[in-house]
């Protein structure tokens, strides 16, 4: 972290999580400065998604603490947890749009049901957000099944930022998209996060995406963070695991074990 990034928004300290005998997170430490974008890179099955779910409160860690703007999220009562959730926005890997709702209802869902805003006002904001992510306003009246994968990601992004969250999470934001659409989504993420002044935590194994949206990069391997630093240091990290991963080499310390 640089000297001016001492104000920490998200602080994971010694987080561990196991499923039976499978230890997925193993004493994980990670700090995300306020207003910065942290991207966690790592291969499949290294614990990226579990880490994100622990931060979001969807999974309960076995050990450790997760401080969100100074407040411990683990073991918080329902009311405190509910207030914390209002600070969050999340773009899911598959979009996770509600099939039975129109696009504008999806985008305005957090405003109407989470914040109690009137539907008319929420619809206006939803259409603004739909336009902001590069979609036509007519899309607002369609259902998720009528949209392409790229359009669904844009709607997911619009939904994630509609409530003006303080922390936004991105789960593999470019997975399954063509390179051009992936770059468009990356640009939109940067634009929306900077526009809101939000803190962002993303997980990905798409290096082009990581380089574009990150201020800081952390690498997770076997359930712990093995390297973290500014994105500008990524190519000379001095860490052989990071080097192997960012260059996509089969040979190196990271091995693919066939069980």
């Amino acid at each position, binding site marked *: 972290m640089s000297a001016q990034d001492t104000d920490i928004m998200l602080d994971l300290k010694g987080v561990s999580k196991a499923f039976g005998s499978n230890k997925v997170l193993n004493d994980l430490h990670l700090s995300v400065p306020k207003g910065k974008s942290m991207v966690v890179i790592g291969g499949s099955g290294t614990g990226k998604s579990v880490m994100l*779910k622990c931060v*979001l*409160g*969807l999974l309960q860690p076995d050990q450790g603490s997760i401080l969100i703007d100074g407040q411990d999220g683990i073991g918080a009562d329902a009311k405190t947890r*509910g207030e914390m*959730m*209002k600070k*969050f*926005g*999340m773009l*899911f*890997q*598959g979009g*996770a*749009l*509600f*099939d039975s709702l129109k696009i504008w209802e999806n985008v305005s*869902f*957090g405003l109407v*049901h*989470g*914040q109690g805003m009137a539907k008319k006002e929420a619809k206006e904001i939803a259409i603004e957000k739909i336009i902001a992510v590069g979609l036509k306003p007519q899309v607002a009246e369609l259902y998720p099944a009528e949209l392409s994968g790229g359009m669904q990601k844009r709607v997911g992004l619009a*939904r994630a930022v509609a*409530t003006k969250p303080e922390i936004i*999470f991105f789960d593999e934001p470019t997975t399954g998209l063509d390179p051009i659409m992936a770059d468009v989504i990356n640009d939109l993420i940067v634009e929306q996060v900077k526009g809101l002044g939000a803190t962002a935590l993303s997980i990905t194994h798409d290096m082009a995406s990581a380089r574009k949206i990150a201020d800081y990069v952390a690498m997770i391997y076997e359930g712990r963070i093995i390297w973290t630093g500014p994105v500008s240091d990524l190519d000379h990290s001095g860490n052989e695991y990071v080097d192997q991963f960012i260059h996509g080499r089969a040979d190196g310390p990271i091995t693919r074990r066939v069980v």
Partner: protein
Amino acid sequence: MTGQAIEQEKPRKCCNPVTAVLDIFGAVGASILNMLAAIGRLCGFISRAVMHCFTPPFFPSQLARQLIDIGYYSLPVVGMTALFTGMVLALQSYTGFTRFNAEGAIAGVVVLSITRELSPVLAGLMVAGRVGAAIAAEIGTMRVTEQIDALRTLSVNPFKYLIAPRVIAATLTLPILVLIGDIIGVYGGYIVSIYSLGFSPAGYLSQTWDTVTQIDVVSGLWKAGAFGFIVSIMGCYHGFNSARGAQGVGAATTNAVVSSSILILIFNYLITQIFFS
């Protein structure tokens, strides 16, 4: 050497009768513990679901949607089932009762069978097939596509938004469906008796009216409420705990229908025992 040592040990362990008996007890004990854990999880789920039915915030638009989906759209299925059940009942009763010159009891048999047993049980089973499966499949798909996680990140409790409206709607609408089924079922018996068996309309209706009592209808409605609760809660439970993938959703759907059907038959006996023992 190590492999040989293991091979030598195995037959000894296998032939030891004490170990074999202990293994059987162990397996039975593990099964019982698993079953108790499953019952505990289900009870926990039910208590959370019931609590969220009575505590705000409420989602009236979701409730209205479920009332239409579960109640209104089940009406043709329940109506057809009741109609043909009433018709068959009249026909079969006539075939049997003529042997004892007891044709006059047909109207009474039809109305009592329909209101007390057949209408609530068959409506419950039909709704279990139609609604229980749909609930499990919809919520299971929401689970595997992370839509339930998305609800949580948008500060909405899935129990309040998904579970409570379905449980309330099914518990309220099934008694109404059964009441309509009662009328249609009795009318089915009336049609067959009048137009096929040659009964007089006034005599048939008079005997129906004289036979049926308030408790016959009320017991059926209580059963219907219980069956509606069972169908919705089992659909929600299996969908909510669906395993990943298409197979997981398929299994959740099957389990929802099978478990709710069995529970309907068990609770039918228990409620009958309470009302008529």
